[in-house]
C-alpha cells in the first residue's frame, strides 16, 4: 500500500538520513522524496512517499520519535493510530 507523509523537521545535517534510515529499517520502501527548506532555513518541509505491507502506524510512530521531527501528517484521510 502507498502512503504519503508530510513532515516538518529541524533543518539539521542528518535529518533526511534519519528519516530514510528509519523507513528502510522498519520495512517500508521509499517511492518518492521532496525536500524544501522553509524561508527561515531552520526547518524543512519533506514529502515522503513510501510503500509497504505493514500498517503505516508502525512507521509513523517510529518517525515521530525522531528528535528532529516537529510535525508529521499522513496525506488524505489516513491517520496514524497514535501520534507523539
Amino acid at each position, binding site marked *: 500500500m502507498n502512503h504519503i507523509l508530510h513532515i516538518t523537521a529541524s533543518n539539521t*545535517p*542528518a535529518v533526511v*538520513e*534519519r528519516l530514510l*534510515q528509519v523507513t528502510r*529499517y522498519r520495512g517500508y520502501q521509499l517511492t518518492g522524496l521532496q525536500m524544501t527548506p522553509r524561508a527561515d532555513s531552520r526547518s524543512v518541509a519533506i514529502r515522503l512517499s513510501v510503500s509497504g505491507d505493514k500498517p503505516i*502506524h*508502525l512507521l509513523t*510512530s*517510529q518517525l*515521530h*520519535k*525522531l*528528535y*528532529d521531527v516537529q510535525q508529521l501528517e499522513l496525506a488524505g484521510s489516513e491517520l496514524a*493510530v*497514535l*501520534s*507523539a
Partner: protein
Amino acid sequence: MKGAELVLKVLQQHGVDSIFGYPGGAIMPIYDALYQSSVKHYLCRHEQGGAFSAIGYARASGKVGVCMATSGPGATNLITSLADAMLDSVPVVAITGQVSQAVMGTDAFQEIDVLGLSLAVTKHSFMVRSVDELAATLNDAFAIALSGRPGPVLVDIPKDVQLAELDYQPEATTSVRPVPVATSLANAAKARALIAGAKKPVAYIGGGVHMAGAMPQLQQFLAANPMPSVTTLKAMGSVAKDNAHYLGMLGMHGTQAANLAVQQCDLLICLGARFDDRVTGNLQKFAPLAKVIHVDIDPAEINKVRFADAALLGDMQQILPAISAGTDCADWLNHCAQLKQQYGWRYDHPGERIYAPLMLKQLSERMPDNSVVACDVGQHQMWVAQHMRFSHPRNHLSSGGLGTMGFGLPAAIGAKLARPQDTVITVTGDGSFMMNVQELATIKRFRLPVKIVVIDNQRLGMVKQWQQLFFNARYSETDLSDNPDFVALAAAFAIPGHCITRKDEVESALEAMFTWPGPYLLHVCIDDKDNVWPLVPPGAANEDMITEAKA
C-alpha cells in the same frame, strides 16, 4: 575559555563526577582540559569497555553515564555499547572527538562519519559545528538521554571546536530538564473495567516500571489488585520479595509457572514492557485467551506486535494508581500457587561436580543485601535470572535487548564506581569473559573490589546447547577447551583467585571471595553437558517448554 574546557564545565554543571574513556588524537584538547578538572576520568582499556562501564554506572545509579573516545576507531569501538544502551533504554552521553572541520570529508587520518554511524544506535546524535552551540548541544544531549524512554545520545565534537575560544559565563548549576511526559488517562476507566472483570489476570512487568521510578506504585498496585506477576529479564527485582504471587521470569527460559500462567490468563497487564520475541515465543500463540492492557511511555510500543485492548501512555507513577480496580480471583491465585509449587526449581543434582543453578542460589543467599550482579550473556545469564533473587532491578545488570557478550566485567566496574558502598559481583562465562578481559587492567589500576565469578564449561554454552538440540549435535566452533588459566590470568593483574570443581568447595570458596577485601576471581568449573532448562524452542508456544526430563 576553550571549547574543550567548556565540555568539562558543562559536565560538572550536570553533576557528572565520573566519566569513562580512552584518549586519542582528535580528542586531545578535551583530555588536556581534563588534566586539571575535578571530573574523575576512568581510563578503560578499550572504548567498548568504557562505554559498557558508563552503562553499568547508569543502570546501577539511575544517573546519566558518560563516556568519551577519539575519532575513527575510538568512535567505532563505542558502537556496540551504544547499541546495547539503545535496546535496553539506558541514558548515556557519548562524547567523541572528530577531526577538524577543515579536513572533514577528505578521508583524513582517523576520520570516519561518526554521525552517520550513530543513526541506528542512538536516540539522537549531534555534530557540533561551532563552539557557540557547544554548551546548548551538550545540555540537549543530557535532556534527551533522560527524557521519556531513556537512551544513548552521541555528541561528535571536531577538534577545531574543542580548540576554539569563547567568552562563556557558566551558570552555577544546570539542572537536567527532561522533556515532561504527557500522560493520558483516557483509557483508565476501560482498564479498570478489564481488571475488575478479569478472572485470571497476570501482571507482566518490564524495565519501564523501575525506570519510571514507579516501584512503590507497582507494589501498591499489586497489593490493591492481588494477581500473579511475572517479569522480564530487565525487570528482575521489581516485585517485592515477600509478594507470594510472584512467579518469576517469563519467556524462552522463564519459569514454567510464569509461562503457563501467562498462556492461561484472560487479562495480561503489560507494564513497561514490549512483547519482545524472547518473551512471547510464537507471537500468534502467546497468551491466546488474554485481553491486553498496555502501559508504556513510548507510543511506538503500543500495538507494535500485540494489539492492546486498553493502552495508556505516559508516566507510570500516575497511571498505576489510576487503573487500580481491585481483583476477585482467589481460585486463579490458588491455581498459580499450585503451578509455582509443582514446577519449583530442584537442586538435588547428582554427583560431585558443581551444578551452576545451585551454586548461583548459594551465591544469591550469601551475597550482602543490595549487592549488584552484572551478568554476561549466555547460559550463565539465564541461570542468574532463574536462580538469584534481587531486591531492585538496579541490582541486576544484564544485557537484555542486544545480548552483548563482554558486557559484564566493564558494567560491574561502572556499577562499583556508582555505588562504592555496595558489593558488586560479575557473573560471567568463559566465552563472555574473554571479550572484554582487558578491563582487568582497569580494576587493577583503580583497585576496584569487584568480585568476578567465571562459570566455565569450556564451551560457548548457549550456542552449544542449540547445536545439541536443533543442529544435530554438530558442534561448530563452540569448543573453548583451550581456555587460559583464569586464576593465573587474574594474577597477572594482581587479582587473587581460586578455582573450584566440586560442590563441597562452593561455600568455602564464596566465603573466601566475600571475605577478601579487594577484587577476586572465582573460577567455577562445571560440566559442559549442563544446559539451561526449561527452554521454549524457536517457533513454539510458551506452554511447549522443553525440560531436562523431556530433552
